C-alpha cells in the first residue's frame, strides 16, 4: 500500500477535503488511476496542475515504481518566469 497525500486545492476539489488515501498501486500511473476511479477528473487535474513527490523527492516520471509505505505527495505546480 502506498500512501497518497493530496494537498489543497486538489483535496477540496476532489476528495471533500480528505488528504490521506491508501492505495494499492505498483506505480504512480496505477495510483493515479485508482484515485481517478474514486474521484473522476483527478487524473486530468494531476496531469495539468500537480507536482508529484515520492518520499519527499519530486518526480516527473509516472512509471516510477512504488514500494509499500511510500508516500506520494500531490501539490499545486508553481509558476516561474
Amino acid at each position: 500500500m502506498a500512501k497518497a497525500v493530496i494537498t489543497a486545492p486538489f483535496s477540496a476539489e476532489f476528495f471533500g477535503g480528505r488528504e490521506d488515501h491508501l492505495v494499492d498501486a505498483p506505480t504512480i500511473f496505477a495510483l493515479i488511476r485508482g484515485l481517478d476511479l474514486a474521484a473522476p477528473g483527478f487524473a486530468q487535474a494531476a496531469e495539468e496542475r500537480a507536482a508529484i513527490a515520492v518520499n519527499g523527492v519530486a518526480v516527473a516520471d509516472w512509471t516510477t515504481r512504488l514500494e509499500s509505505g511510500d508516500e506520494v505527495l500531490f501539490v499545486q505546480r508553481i509558476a516561474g518566469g
Partner: protein
Amino acid sequence: MNAPVTPKAFKVVGTRPVRPDGVDKVTGKAIYGPDFVAPGMIHGAILRSPHAHAKILSINTKKAEALAGVKAVITSADFPGQESKVLAGGETSSNQRDIAQICMADGKVLYAGHAVAAVAATSEAIARAAVALIEVTYEVLPHVIEVEEAIAPGAPLLHADMYTKGVEPASDQPSNAAMCFTLARGDADAALARAAITVTGRYKTPPVHQGYIEPHACVASWNADGQGQMWVSSQGAFDIRNTTAAVLHMPIADLRVMPLEIGGGFGGKTTIYLEPVAMLLSRKAGRPVRIAMNRQEVFCGTGPAPGSVADVTLGSDADGNFVGLKVEFWSQAGAFPGSGVHSGVMTALGAYTVANAHVRGWDVVSNIPATKAYRAPGAPQIAFALESAIDDLAVKLGMDAIDLRLKNAVRPGDPGPMRLPHGAIGYVECLEAAKAHPHWSAPLGANQGRGVAGAFWGNYGGPSTAAVSLSSDGSVQVTTGNPDIGGSRASMAIMAAETLDVPYESVRVAIADTASIGYSMLTGGSRVTFATGKAVVEAAQNVRETLVSRAASLFGVDTAEVEWHGGAAHCLSGERKGESLSIGAIAAKAGQFSGTITSEVSINPLDYLPGFAVHICDSEVDPETGHVRIVRYTAVQDVGRAIHLDYVEGQLQGGAVQGIGWALNEAYVFDAEGRMENPGFLDYRMPVASDLPMIDTVLVEVPNPAHPYGVKGVGEAPIVPPLAAVANSVRHATGIRMRELPLSPDKVYAALRAAD
C-alpha cells in the same frame, strides 16, 4: 551523477571566459526579433482598443480593405473557434481560449490596448493608415482597475462565466476573483493571539512592466498547404510554436519556429501576442508578414507583472521565534486569470519556519492588460510585505535584523512550503555571509539608513534536450533549444568543456530551431543552467564514453585500461601503454566505427533546489524633496555553484536593480477612463546608470547534489528581496514605515511632512 561535496579543482567551471556569441553582439551583427527580414515580406499593424472595457458591437473593415497596398485585414472572426482548454506550456498551464483572446479581442475588449483588428500592407505606413480606417462601434462598459474595487459587491464583471475556484462551498455568483489558493499549518489565529509581539500591516504594490528593451516583433509565413514558419525572439521557440499551433488548430509539426536573438524577456516573452495574428495575415495575403510593436504597444498590450494588496500579521515569542503568520493577498491579474498566486503563497512560507500559518492568495481580474510572469512571478510582492513585517518585528524586539532572520531561517530537512523537506539549501549561509560582510557594519552618513531583506524562490527544472556532436577534427558542437538570454551559451560551453576536459574555445554552442532538435521548455524559471545544463553534461558524458571505448579498440585493450584526461585517451596497459589518442585523432577515425560521435539527450529533471538571497541596501533620503538615493547595495545569494562567474553576478546585479526600480519609481498609472497614462520610458521611469551605485555581489556556494556541477537556478531570486530591502532602509533612515510602492519622492515627501 552527484556534485562532489568537496569540489575537485575545476578547470573551466567557475571562470570568466568570453561568451561565444559575444563578438556578434558588440559589433551589431546579432539578429534580434525586430531585425529579421524575409524576402517579399509585407508589414502588419494592429488596431487597439481605446476603452478599458467595452462590448464590440461591430467592426467595419471595408475602407481599410479598399486602401491601395492593403493585402489582408483580420479580426477575431478569422480565428478558429476556441474552447476553454488548458495548455501545458511553461511551469504553469495557460488557457488556450484566454491566450487567443489576448492576441485578438473576441466580442469584448477588456483593457485599453487590447487588440481588435489587424492589417497587412505593402508598407508599415500603409498598414497604419489602414488601421485608422477600420470602424469599430463600441458599447462602453464600466471598468475596474484596482483589486479592492474589483472584488467589491456590484463591481463590473469582466467574465460573466467566471466563478471563484478553490472556495468552499463553491460559489454560485460570478466574480472577478478567479481563484483562491490557501496553504495552512497549525492554528495561526490562536498562535497570534498568544504571541508576545505581533506586527501587522497592509502592503500595496502597483503593476510594473518587465521592461525588456527589445519590443516584441515577429515574421510569419503560412502557406496554403498548411505549413508555416515564424522568426521570432522569445524565451522559448518550442512553447511559442506549441501555443501558436494550438490557437490556430495546426498540427504542431506544420509550424517551424526559428529563434532569433532575444533582447530581454524576464518572463514577458514566454507567451504569444503577435504570432497568430501574423500567421493569419500571412495566409490571407500569401506573403510573409512582419509585425513589430512600438514601446507604447508593449506597455499597453503586453503583460506587466501584477499589482498586489497584502495583509500580513506576524507574531513571535519574546525571544523572537516566529510563532504565527497570517497573510491574505489579492493579486491584480489583469484581464485574464493566472497571476502567480501559488508562488506568492509559497513565498510567504519559503524562508522561515513557523509552526502556525495561514496564507491565502486571490487571483483577481480587472481591466488592465493580462499580466505575465516577471522574474520570480508573484514573489517580490509578498516578500515586500513579509520582509517589511520582519523588520518591524526586529525593531520591536530590539534585535539585529539579520539575527532575527537567522533565528527563524529554514535549514536542510525543515519542511518546505509545499511540505517537501528542504534539501541542500543555503539560506543560513547567506545570512551569515551578509552579517560578516563589511557593508553590514559600515558607518552611515546623515539621512542614511540601512535595510536588509531575505528571499526564497522555488526555481524549476523541467524538460530539456541537448545534443553534443564531434566534428572530424575533434572540435565540439553543442546544440540546445533554449534561447540565450544572458550568457547561457557560455555556461553550456563551460560545462561541456569541463566534462570532456577540452579547451573552452573548442566548444561552440548553437540554439536550434524547433525542427532541428527535441523539445525544451522555455528559458525561464531559473531552469536553463540547471536542466539544460544537465542534459548537456549527460550528452557530453555519453560522447566521452564513446571516445574511451573507441580508443580502447584502437589501443587493442579493455575500456577499463583507458583513462580520459586532458582531452585525450591514455592507454594504461598492453603494448601501447603510455600512448595517447587525442579527441581529434579518435573523431577522425569515425569511418572505422559506427559513424560520427553524437549524443542527443532528453531529460525532465525535477531535482532542482530553491534559491535563497539576502540583500543589504543603504539609502539616503533627502528631507527637502523626499528623493531616495541608493548609496550602497550588496546582494548575497546561494547559487549552488557558479558556472560562469560574470553571468551569475550579472543575474544578481540585474535582478537587484529591477527590484530597486520597482521599489522606487516604477508603476502603471491609469487615468479615470482606465487608460495607462505613462506608456513610455520617460514617464515609466526605469533605473538608469546615474541612479545607482555599484552592486556588490557575494556568491555563496552550497552545491546542489543532483546537478553534476552543483548548479542551482540563480536568475529569479535576486528580484525578490530588493523591494523590502529598500523600504527597510528608508524606514531606518526616517523612522517611517512605508507600505505602498513605489517610494517615489512625492510619497516619501508626504510621509515626511505627515510625521513632522
